[in-house]
């Protein structure tokens, strides 16, 4: 949008003499407009500074200081360079947690996405009760993680859990076990719960994506003789690629930092079989009170979601640029 050219020959406005820049021979109205624009970003900037930049910088400051419980009051904390990072990186528990986080995230994303995609394909076509069922599915996503975690903890219980009862009912007694107690299956158990929580979110976003595909494409392909499978393979999937990448990036950000669900279900146990990075950081902070190391580990934990977030923002930009 260009400003009207006539503005330049109009006399300076008298209603706003306070604003000095209005009295100066303004370079161009668009510059003034831009300056006003910056003014409007102030609340947003203040919000970011207060609630994002400050805590982050404080965390970064903590991560290079020797901060424990002692000395918290007097503020007698010593700068110790990268010692906290070194301690974190040389802690085998940290790498164990990082591996668990990777497995947890990859497992969750894989199933969330494929099941979500399948459900999106289902709900993309009209059928009776479509809207109702879709809303009901969303409940899984809307439940507070503490509730869903407790629910799954109970259902996966070895003695009185619903899943073991189901397995026994269909004659698969051999498979029934203490899902969350057995170190071999507890991670699978929390992934299972997290998939259940994440499927509706994936489905909803993918469904919106599916609606953006022009039905004429499918019609044209059908006329050309393409079957349902071929249309999925050669039209839906390629056209859904950008949306899918976005959904996976967002999913990665969410899944990587999941804390409450696991905390409620297993508390990181048995032993440390489900102690993912977020739980590791929590323990360093609030069980061992090594705030410096906790801050360092927290910043390291931030790297993956930050990269994913950057990827997401880049995609967003590119999409906007394309218009």
């Amino acid at each position, binding site marked *: 949008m260009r400003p009207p050219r006539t503005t330049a020959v109009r006399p300076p406005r008298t209603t706003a003499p306070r604003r000095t820049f209005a009295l100066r021979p303004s370079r161009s109205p668009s510059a003034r407009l831009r300056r006003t624009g910056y003014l409007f970003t102030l609340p947003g900037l203040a919000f970011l500074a207060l609630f994002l930049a400050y805590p982050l910088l404080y965390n970064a400051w903590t991560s290079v200081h020797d901060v424990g*419980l002692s*000395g*918290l009051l007097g503020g007698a904390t010593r700068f110790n360079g990268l010692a906290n990072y070194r301690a974190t990186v040389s802690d085998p528990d940290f790498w164990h947690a990082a591996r668990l986080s990777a497995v947890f995230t990859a497992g969750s994303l894989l199933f969330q996405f494929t099941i979500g995609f399948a459900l999106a394909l289902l709900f993309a076509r009209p059928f009776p009760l479509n809207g109702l069922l879709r809303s009901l599915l969303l409940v899984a996503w809307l439940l507070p993680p503490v509730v869903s975690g407790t629910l799954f903890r109970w259902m996966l219980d070895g*003695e009185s859990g619903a899943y073991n009862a189901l397995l026994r009912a269909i004659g698969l007694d051999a498979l029934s076990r*203490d899902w969350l107690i057995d170190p071999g299956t507890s991670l699978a158990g929390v992934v299972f719960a997290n998939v259940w929580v994440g499927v509706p979110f994936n489905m909803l976003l993918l469904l919106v994506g599916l609606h953006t595909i022009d039905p004429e494409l499918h019609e*044209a392909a059908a006329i050309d003789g393409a079957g349902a499978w071929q249309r999925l393979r050669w039209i839906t999937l390629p056209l859904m690629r950008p*949306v899918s990448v976005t959904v996976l990036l967002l999913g990665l950000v969410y899944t990587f930092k999941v804390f409450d669900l696991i905390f409620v279900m297993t508390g990181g146990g048995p032993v440390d079989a489900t102690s993912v990075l977020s739980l590791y950081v929590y323990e360093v902070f*609030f069980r061992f*009170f090594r705030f410096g190391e906790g801050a360092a580990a927290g910043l390291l934990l931030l790297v993956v979601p930050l990269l994913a977030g950057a990827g997401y923002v880049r995609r967003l930009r590119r999409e906007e640029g394309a218009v």
Partner: protein
Amino acid sequence: MPSTLDRRALDRRAFDRRHFLRAAGAGAAALGTAGALASCGNSETTEASGKREQGSGETTTLTWWDYFTLENFQPGMTALIEDIEAGVPDVRIRRRTFPFADLERQITLGAVSGDLPDIAIVDNVSMNALGGSDLLADLTERVEEWGQADQYYEGPWAGCQVDGKTLGIPNTSNCLALYYNTEILRSANVKPPTTWDELAAAAQRLTNGNRFGLAMSAIRTEEGVFQFLPFLWQTGGDLDTFATDGETALAFLDDLVAKGSLSEQCVGWTQQDVNTRFVDGRAAMQINGPWQIPTLEKAADLEWSVVALPRDKESATCLGGENWVVMASSEKQDKAWEVLEYTQRRSVLVPYLESFGNLPSRKDLADAGTWASEPAKRLFLDQLSLARPRTYGPGYPDISRDVADAEQSVLTDSAAPSAAARTAAGKIDEALERR
């Protein structure tokens, strides 16, 4: 594919996707905020409404934090605060409660933000972490002047001492003992066990179908460690001999699990879960504390009794309960101490402890309240003289995790007792030196 159609479709897609991406982003942001808001713990601020004091001097308002959030504690706490405000001249109490797991964390956060109470009632195990932190006021001189230290049971009092300084006053104390279902034991003709061998034999004989002989908590928190430490101490050892005595204790429990007398699921049970199983008759015996007595009394069909924990080389049980502390940051320490001293008077302490269903930490109150006449409470009170505090210094949080991990890896068959004990012992020794 026809190119015009393609072009149009792409345009529409791009437009729609932009909106989609925006909406997704906004949804994501909103979700994040909502999550953060939801996770903020709910704490209530209670202004105790006491009688107006008669004193003419300036009124001092003391902030007070505790973790007694449950409804059934409120009448007793309100009565105590009213009593304090009436009995200590010119003092008002502003009380704030936090969930049990949040109090210690809130104190550390408060230390950063400068928002700390004058008085707090903290779990006795918190003395390890808080004791080394300069957060707690040194009460040594005041206590000496007061001269009532020898009225307390040894364990609870020792739990308030850090590096030779008195940093707190015991609020209430408890410990662990062995509950048993009298009916089940009678019909199986089993006597309550007094030694490890008897315990193992009894647990095996009492195990039947859906019912386990013994239930205890081996969860991966302090709760599980609280239940494990007595076994370690009963071997005659302590944390500094974990490699050998830890192995003995771990092997004993491992054996119980291997024989099916103790459910492997105990690695996920809180002490509350354990009690639920005992009440349901799914466990013939349980290790638990006196705070379960009210629940057990309510279970109409349940006949139960309680004995001391079985011994190996020694008798031992673990001390639980809370301590009163004054914060070093408080500018009203004199008044805070006055309040603490007041709460320890017989006429104040007895009704307060009775209303909580708690046991006193003072020997001179042993014959004063309901605990004197009720056999179950009496048993726990007698055991208090054997109860050991977990005073191991600032490294204790690490030790606690190492012990829990060792126990869990043995009970879930991830490691043999000897290997688990050796691994843990190395880490424990390191943490014990951090003084």
